[in-house]
């Protein structure tokens, strides 16, 4: 109201305008300063593992409703997801095992299995050396004769002191690990006759201390 009066009363106009400018500047400064918040730094959202005050268990990660099927995760393939065929442990793999699968299997085995089963599968890994009950060696006749489905099932459900690894290793990777366990079993029980003929020559040269390159 004063401002309106001021514009009418010619002589007070400059003063009123200056006051107005002052007020606008201060308001601007106040707005700017009050705008210094961390809205972008700290956003009203949840990221994985963040706590929540809203849910009674204190977690923002919600368990799926029972019966939920994730996209591309419909588990109707019995062999793939349970290691059995018609309820009997199977000795077949649900997909053809290639060299790449074996290499992936070795990598996953070394990450998840070797702490107890050790890199060769004899069951004397570092954690066993520190007091964990020793698992059986894969070289036991019982385990050499066991169908691959058995290894898949043990990884999926756990056995004895061993917990389930289903949350850590995907079903396809469990099959690749099972395939690699077969490789380990073979590696300790192979004869020269198991080596393909062209490779056998190289192997024999290597065992006499010569590499094919040196031989020429």
């Amino acid at each position, binding site marked *: 109201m004063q401002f309106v009066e001021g514009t009418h009363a010619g002589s007070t106009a400059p003063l009123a305008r200056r006051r107005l400018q002052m007020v606008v500047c201060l308001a601007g400064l106040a707005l700017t300063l009050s705008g210094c918040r961390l809205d*972008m*730094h*700290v*956003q009203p*959202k949840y*990221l*994985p*593992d963040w*706590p929540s005050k809203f849910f009674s*268990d*204190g*977690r923002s990660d919600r368990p799926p409703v029972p019966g939920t099927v994730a996209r591309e995760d419909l588990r109707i393939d019995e062999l793939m997801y349970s290691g059995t065929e018609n309820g009997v442990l199977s000795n077949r793999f649900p997909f053809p095992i290639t060299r790449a699968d074996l290499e992936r299997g070795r990598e996953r085995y*070394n*990450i*998840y299995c070797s*702490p107890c089963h050790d890199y060769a599968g004899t069951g004397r890994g*570092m*954690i066993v050396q*520190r*007091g*964990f*009950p020793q698992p059986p060696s894969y070289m036991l006749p019982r385990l050499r004769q066991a169908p691959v489905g058995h290894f898949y099932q043990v990884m999926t459900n756990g056995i004895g*002191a*061993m*917990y389930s690894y289903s*949350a*850590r290793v995907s079903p396809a990777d469990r099959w690749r690990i099972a395939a690699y366990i077969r490789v380990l079993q073979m590696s300790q029980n192979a004869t020269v006759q198991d080596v393909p003929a062209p490779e056998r020559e190289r192997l024999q040269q290597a065992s006499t201390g010569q590499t094919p390159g040196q031989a020429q």
Partner: protein
Amino acid sequence: MAQIFHRSSNMIARLSIAGAVILLGALTVILYEIALSPWYTNERVTLQQPVPFSHRHHAGELGIDCRYCHTAVEKSWYAGVPPTQTCMTCHSQIWTNADMLEPVRQSYRTGVSLQWNKLNELPEFVYFNHSIHVAKGIGCTTCHGPIATEPMTYKTGTLYMSWCLECHRDPAKFVRPESEVFNPFYAQPTYGAPVTFEGVKYTDQATLGSVLVKKYQLQTYQYCSTCHR
């Protein structure tokens, strides 16, 4: 009329101008140093945790692979803090009476999560992705430091944008062979300790880095939207 100021005021005036410049400079340096100091960045500062978990023991002495616990690191932006079940995989059998581990057992019994204190915190407008970094030859220890020697974990970078850009401008300085990404004891090649990649021995990071940058097709992305989305 007498002069208000004595002649010496000239000198004082000049000195105060110079003083102001020096003071401003000093203030800038001091603020800069404070912003880079662990007091402000929390670098190399450990936090109180519910359980004094030692990466030195687990990753260093026992040689457990990073991915045994941080299972999502290869397929997600988030490396993942392991669930209590992962701890209990071993600790249901060993150190079962240790008081230190009681919070873990309690969490497993009751289903209430352990609440760890976060060390490496990014502003929430930064979208960092672990999976692409580990897939392109950037090792865990490149950012997380000598984690396998840390009894209590601390962060080893400022996590400032300049820190990220250091590598985004020139990844050749940091990249390592993919097979060494999860090796916590990897050291960059030196003349005395060369690194072999695809049958070739490298004795310096500059050469190895430039080979790997080409091999892995590393991009020097510096667009704002690379990280700020």
